[in-house]
C-alpha cells in the first residue's frame, strides 16, 4: 500500500483503458449490443434452431427412429389407456425409457401420428376416411398393430334367471335395444312377462358406437343413459329386468348373454371365445404408427414388448384379452 487510493485507482483505470484502447462509451455500447443480441437470439432465433430430437430424426429419415430420445408419448383412446398404463412401468423397468401416457380419444391418436407429434398413437377403431385423406396428404402411411382384444358383452339381470339362460342372436339384440321387444317374454318364452329396462350409454361414447356397429342397431331407445362402464354395470346389477352393454373388462359379477356366431352356435364372452374370434362382438385394439417401424428403433422395441408374453400378461392385467 505505497500509494494513496486515488492514485492506485487512476493507475488501474489507465491500465485498463490502455489495454482496451477504446473510449468508455464505445465499450459500454459493445456490452449492451452483446446483451441485446443474446436476448434477441434467445427469443427469436432459438425456436427456429431448437428442434426436438424426434422431429429432427424424422425430418432426416422420414420415419421415427430415435434410440437416443428416451421418451415415447402415447396418446389416444381411453379404452387402450389401461393397457398403456399397465405396460409403461414394465417397459421403463426393462429399458429406462420414459413412456408418457395420456388419453383424448382415438381421433387424437390418429392426429398425433399424422401430424408427426408422436410416433405411436393408441386407437380402438380403424381410421376414418378424413383421417386417411389427411394422412395421404402428408405422406403418412397409417400402420395398425393389433395388441389386444376387446368385446362388447350384453349384460342382463332378470330375477330368477342365471348365466346361460339367455341366448340371443344379433338380430334379437338389435330389436331389444331399438324398442321392438318390450317384454322379456317376447325375447325368450321362459322369461316372465316383465318390461325390459334398457340402459344405454351417452351419445359420444366409443363403447356405444362399437355396440351399435357390432349389433346393427341404428337407433337406441334407452330408458336410462349412463356415462361409463362401471355405472352401466352397477345400474344393471341394481335394476331388476334390465339389460345393457359394457366392455369385456367390466363384465364381472353380472350375467352376460350368449351371442350367436356365424354358424348359429351360441358363445358366451370368455377369454377363450374372444381369443379364438368365436364370440362375434369383438374388436381389436391397436397401436398406430407411421409406416412399419424401423428395426431396432424405440417404437419397434415398444411394439415387440407389447406383443411379448410379458406385455400380453400386462394386457390381461388391464382387463382385456391378449391377442397372441
Amino acid at each position, binding site marked *: *500500500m505505497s500509494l494513496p487510493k486515488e492514485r*492506485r*485507482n487512476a493507475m*488501474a*483505470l489507465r*491500465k*485498463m483503458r490502455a489495454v482496451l484502447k477504446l*473510449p*468508455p*462509451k464505445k*465499450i*459500454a455500447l459493445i456490452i449492451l449490443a452483446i446483451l441485446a443480441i443474446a436476448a434477441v437470439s434467445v427469443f427469436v432465433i432459438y425456436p427456429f434452431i431448437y428442434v426436438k430430437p424426434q422431429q429432427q430424426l424424422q425430418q432426416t429419415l422420414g420415419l421415427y427412429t430415435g434410440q437416443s430420445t428416451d421418451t415415447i408419448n402415447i396418446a389416444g383412446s381411453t379404452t387402450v389407456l389401461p393397457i398403456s398404463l399397465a405396460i409403461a412401468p414394465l417397459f421403463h423397468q426393462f429399458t429406462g425409457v420414459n413412456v408418457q401416457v*395420456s388419453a*383424448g*380419444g382415438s*381421433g*387424437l391418436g390418429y*392426429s398425433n401420428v*399424422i*401430424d408427426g*407429434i408422436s410416433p405411436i398413437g393408441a386407437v380402438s377403431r380403424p381410421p376414418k376416411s*378424413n383421417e386417411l*385423406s*389427411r394422412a395421404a*396428404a402428408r405422406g403418412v402411411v397409417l400402420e395398425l398393430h393389433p395388441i389386444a382384444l376387446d368385446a362388447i358383452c350384453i349384460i342382463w339381470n332378470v330375477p330368477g334367471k342365471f348365466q346361460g339362460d339367455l341366448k340371443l342372436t344379433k338380430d334379437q339384440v338389435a330389436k331389444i335395444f331399438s324398442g321392438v321387444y318390450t317384454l322379456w317374454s317376447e325375447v325368450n318364452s321362459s322369461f316372465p312377462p316383465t318390461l325390459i329396462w334398457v340402459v344405454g350409454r351417452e351419445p359420444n361414447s366409443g363403447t356405444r358406437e362399437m355396440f351399435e356397429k357390432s349389433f346393427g342397431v341404428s337407433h337406441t331407445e334407452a330408458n*336410462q*343413459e349412463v*356415462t361409463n362402464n362401471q355405472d352401466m354395470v352397477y345400474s344393471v346389477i341394481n335394476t331388476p329386468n334390465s339389460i345393457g352393454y359394457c366392455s369385456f373388462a367390466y363384465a364381472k359379477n353380472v350375467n352376460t348373454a350368449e351371442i350367436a356366431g356365424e354358424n348359429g352356435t351360441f358363445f358366451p364372452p370368455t377369454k377363450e371365445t374372444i381369443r379364438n374370434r368365436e364370440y362375434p362382438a369383438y374388436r381389436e385394439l391397436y397401436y398406430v404408427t407411421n409406416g412399419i417401424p424401423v428395426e431396432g428403433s424405440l417404437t419397434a422395441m415398444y411394439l415387440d414388448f407389447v406383443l411379448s408374453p410379458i406385455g400380453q400378461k400386462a394386457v390381461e392385467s388391464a382387463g382385456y384379452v391378449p391377442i397372441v
Partner: protein
Amino acid sequence: MMELLRRVWTGFKALWPIEAFRRPAPSAETLRLRGLEYSRRFFSPEGFTGVCALSSFVITMLILFFLIQQGLPILQYMGYGPYVLPLLKEMGYSEYIWLLNNGNIVTGLVNFVTGSTWDPSGFNFGILPLIAGTFIVVGGALLIALPIGILSAIHLAEYCSPTVKNIVKPIIELLAGVPSVVYGFVGLTILAPWIANIFSLRSGQSALAGSIILSIMILPTIVSISEDAISSVPRDYKEASLALGATHFQTVWRVLLPAAISGITASIILAIGRALGETMAVLMVCGGVANIPPLSLEMFFTSVKPMTAAIAAEMGETAVGSVHYHALFGVGLVLFGITYIVNFVADLINARFRKKFGGSR
C-alpha cells in the same frame, strides 16, 4: 488478492462513467418548466424497473396477439355465413376450408357469436349455447351469492361481536384460496347425486349444481370486500344517524349501505369477473351438453356447457391447426373480450365513485 479484485472492480466501475452518457445538463429554466428536480436516465434503476413494469402490458399484448392469431381464421371462415362450414363438411370437401380464408371478419364474428348450434364434428361453430350456458351458471350463482354475501358482510361489519368476527373473517378469507378442482370434485361426487336424488333427475350434473358451486366460490370475494367497504364508512355517518334517533337497522339500511355502495359494487363486479373465468368447477358439474336451455325454470335442471368448460374439455382432443382448434381460440378470444369489458366497467365505476365521494373508497 482482495486488493487486486478491488482495483479491478473500481476500474470496471470507472468504465461506466455516467458523464460519458450524459446529455448536456438541462438548464435551470428547462428544469423549472419541466417541474423536475432530478435528472432521469434510462440506464438506471428507474429505467430497469420501468421495463419490468411494462412486462404486464407486454404479457397482455402477447395474450391478445396469440388469441387473435389463432382465433382469426374461424372468424374468417364464418364470414361467409354460419351454414357454409357444415355444408362443406356434409359434401365431403372439408379439406377445402382454405377457400373461406378471406371471409369478412366482422360478419364472421356476428355469425360466430349468434350461431345457435355448437357441434364441432358437424362443423357447426355457433357459440350461443356456450354463452347461454355461461350466463345461466353465472347468473344463478349471483342470484344465490349476492343476497347471502352482502347480508353476511353487513352482519360481520355491524352486528356480530368482535370475537366471532375475528374467527369468521379469517376463515372466509382462507377459503377463498381453495382450488377450484376441489370444489368441482366435491360438486361432482356429493352435490350432483344429491340434486339428482332430491329432484328425481337422471343426472344431477346441471346448471343448478354449477350455480351452487360457483356461488360458494365467489362468496369469499363478495363478503370480504363488502365487509371492508362497510367497515370503512366514516363513523360520523353512523353516529349522526343514531344521534338523530334512527334504530340500528335503519342506520345500516339507509345510511351505511348507500355510503358503502361503491365498495360493494366493486366486490360484485370482481365476483362477476371471477365467476365468468371459472373453469374447472363448472367443467366437472355442469354436464357438458352444448344446447341452449329452454327459457323457463327448467333451465336450471338441464345440462349446460359454459364457454370455459367447452375450451377445457375439447382442447385436449383437437388437432393443432384444425378448424375446431381455431374455433376454440375464437371462444377464448370472446371470453377475453368479455372479461376485459367487465374489468373496464369496474375501473370506470371505481373512478366515478372516487370522483363522486372524493376518497371514501
